[in-house]
C-alpha cells in the first residue's frame, strides 16, 4: 500500500540471507501491482468493517471522516511527495467534488450513488486538467501561489451564484441510509461509513498502483531532478499535469464522499484553512509514503477533538479555549519538522528498523 513498504520488500533479499527458490514474498511481488493493491484494499476494508462493528454507531461518522480525509490527503501525497509540486488549493478540489455531489443529489435524485461518485470524479478531473494545464509551467512557490488563489477565490463563487450554490448556507441534501435488507443490521451512519471506506480503499488502491509503478517513478524522478528526468526521456510537463489531475480527482472524490456523509456542502468548510490543514497534516503524518496519509487523516479528525478536550479540562476562558488547539497543532508541526522531518511515519519506520535489527 505504500512506496516505502515495497522498497523494504525489495531491499530484503539483499540484507537478509540469500533468498530461497520462491518465498511467499516473491510470489506476492510477482502478482501484477493493481491486483496486489486491490487485495490489500480488500484486506483494509475487512479490518475497517471489523473495527466499525466493534465500536458501533457513535464513532461511525468519525470513521467515515477519517476515510475521506485520508483519500484526499493521499491524493495530495502523490502530488507533493510524489511529483514535488506544492499545492495550497487542494481544498478547492474537495469543494468542487462536494458541490458537484450536492447538485447531483439535489437535482438528479434518480441517479444511483455510484453514478454520482463517477460523475464527481469526472468533474474534478476536468477541473484538474484546466488548472493543471494553466499552471504546468509554474515551479515551487509560484505554483503554490496560483493554487492559493484557487483556495481563496473558489468559496466566493457560492455568494456570486447565490441562487444556484446557496450562498453561505450552502446546499443541503438528504442521502439514503442502508438498503432495506440491511436495515436491522446496520445503522444509517454505519452503512455510510462502509460505503465511504469501500470507495476510499478502491481510490487508495489506484493511487498506490500509480505511485509504485512506472508513472510514480517518473514523478519521483521529476521531483528529484527535472533536467536529468527530461534527459532520460520523461515528458516533464505532461507528467506534472497528470500528477496534478490525479490529485484533483482524489480530492474531488473525497469532497463528494464528505457531502454524502454530512449531507451538506457549505463554503465555510472549504476555506484556505482546510487546504493548509491538509498540507500540514501530510507533513505531520509523513511525506513520501501512503501510510503517512493515514496518520495525517487520523490527526485531522482526532487530534483537534483530543486537543479541544484536553484544553477544556483546564477550564480557561472561551477565547483561549477556542484557539489553543490550533496553536498546539502548529507547535506539534514545528516540533515534528525540527526533530523528525519524515513525520510520524518516519518515527514508525525508525522504530521498525530498530526492532528488526535487534532481533537479528
Amino acid at each position: 500500500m505504500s512506496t516505502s513498504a515495497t522498497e523494504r520488500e525489495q531491499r530484503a533479499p539483499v540484507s537478509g540471507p540469500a533468498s530461497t527458490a520462491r518465498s511467499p514474498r516473491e510470489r506476492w511481488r510477482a502478482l501484477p501491482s493493481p491486483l496486489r493493491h486491490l487485495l490489500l484494499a480488500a484486506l483494509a476494508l475487512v479490518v475497517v468493517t471489523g473495527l466499525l462493528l466493534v465500536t458501533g454507531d457513535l464513532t461511525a461518522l468519525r470513521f467515515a471522516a477519517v476515510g475521506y480525509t485520508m483519500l484526499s490527503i493521499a491524493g495530495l501525497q502523490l502530488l507533493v511527495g510524489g511529483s514535488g509540486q506544492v499545492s495550497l488549493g487542494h481544498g478547492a478540489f474537495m469543494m468542487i467534488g462536494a458541490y458537484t455531489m450536492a447538485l447531483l443529489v439535489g437535482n438528479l435524485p434518480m441517479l444511483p450513488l455510484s453514478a454520482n461518485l463517477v460523475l464527481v470524479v469526472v468533474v474534478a478531473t476536468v477541473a484538474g486538467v484546466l488548472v493543471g494545464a494553466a499552471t504546468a509551467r509554474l515551479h515551487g512557490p509560484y505554483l503554490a501561489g496560483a493554487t492559493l488563489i484557487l483556495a481563496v477565490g473558489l468559496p466566493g463563487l457560492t455568494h456570486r451564484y447565490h441562487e444556484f450554490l446557496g450562498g453561505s448556507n450552502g446546499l443541503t441534501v438528504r442521502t439514503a441510509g442502508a438498503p432495506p435488507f440491511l436495515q436491522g443490521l446496520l445503522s444509517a451512519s454505519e452503512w455510510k461509513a462502509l460505503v465511504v471506506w469501500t470507495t476510499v480503499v478502491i481510490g487508495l488502491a489506484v493511487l498506490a498502483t500509480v505511485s509504485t509503478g512506472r508513472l510514480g517513478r517518473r514523478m519521483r524522478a521529476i521531483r528529484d531532478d527535472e533536467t536529468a528526468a527530461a534527459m532520460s526521456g520523461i515528458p516533464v510537463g505532461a507528467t506534472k499535469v497528470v500528477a496534478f489531475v490525479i490529485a484533483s480527482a482524489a480530492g474531488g472524490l473525497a469532497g463528494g464522499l464528505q457531502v454524502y456523509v454530512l449531507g451538506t456542502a457549505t463554503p465555510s468548510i472549504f476555506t484556505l484553512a482546510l487546504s493548509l490543514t491538509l498540507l500540514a497534516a501530510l507533513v505531520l503524518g509523513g511525506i513520501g509514503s501512503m501510510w503517512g496519509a493515514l496518520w495525517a487523516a487520523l490527526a485531522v479528525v482526532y487530534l483537534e477533538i483530543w486537543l479541544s478536550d484536553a484544553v477544556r479540562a483546564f477550564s480557561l476562558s472561551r477565547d483561549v479555549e477556542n484557539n489553543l488547539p490550533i496553536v498546539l497543532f502548529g507547535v506539534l508541526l514545528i516540533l515534528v519538522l525540527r526533530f523528525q522531518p519524515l513525520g510520524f511515519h518516519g518515527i514508525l519506520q525508525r522504530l521498525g528498523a530498530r526492532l528488526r535489527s535487534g532481533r537479528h
Partner: protein
Amino acid sequence: MTTTATEHLLTAEGITVRFGGLTALDDVDLRVRPGGVTGLIGPNGAGKTTLFNVLSGVLRPTSGTITWKGAPPSNRRTHHLARAGIARTFQGLNLFPLMTVLDNVAVGADRLARGGPLSLLTGLGRHHRDERELRERAMAALERFGVADTAYRLPGTLPYGVQKQVALARACVGDPELLLLDEPAGGLSGGQIGDLAAQIRELGRDMAVVLVEHHMDLVMEVCDHIVVLNFGRVISTGTPDEVRADPEVTRAYLGTTDDGNE
C-alpha cells in the same frame, strides 16, 4: 544501433548561440559517426558545455541546424531527443537523490518500456511486464558497471567514484545510439581514470560517444576524432595525432607551458 542511408548519426551545422551580447558558439560544425569516440576539447569558456546543451536539447541555438540520422529531429525538446536515442551524463552527475540506485537506473531505461499511456495510468496491460523488464535491465546495467551491490542504496550514501558509475549506468541502460559524456574524469583518481578510459572505449564499440573533457591524457587515449573549440569557434579537428601537431591548438590550449605539451 545501425543507421541506414547516412554516414553520420548526428550533424550540427553552423550552430551559433548568443547570450545577449556574448557569443558562446560561433558557426560551429560537428559530425558524429555511429560508433567511435569523439572528443570535444578547449580551454575553459570555449563553449564545450554550451554545445553539449544544444546537442541534448537543453538549449536552443540562436541559429544553425541539427540533423539526427539524416533528418531534422521531429521535436527539439529534451525528452524527445532522449527517446530518439540521445543520452547524456552531467558534470554534477544529477542523480535522483531520494530514489534507490536501481530506480535511478530504471528511469534511464524508461524509454524502452512499450506500454502506452493507459498502462502507465492504470498499471494494467503491459505495465507488469514493462516493470519487470525495466528492473532486469537496470540490474543488468548495474552489474555491467560493477555496482550491482549498491542497488538498494541511496546515491548520496555512496563514494563519488561509485556514483559516477551509477550515472554512467543510467545513461547507457536505455541503449542510446549517441552518448554525451560531460567531463567523465572529473574528480577521479589516476587509477580510476585508467579504468574509465577502457570503459569509454568499450562503450564506443556499441554507440557513438561524444565527450567533453579537460583531462588531456584521457582524451588522447580514447578518442578517434577530436574537435577543438576556442572562444566559441572550431579551431582544429582531426585524429589525436593531427590535433596534437596543430600549431593553432598548441597556441590556444597546450602551448602556454612546456609540460602541457605531453
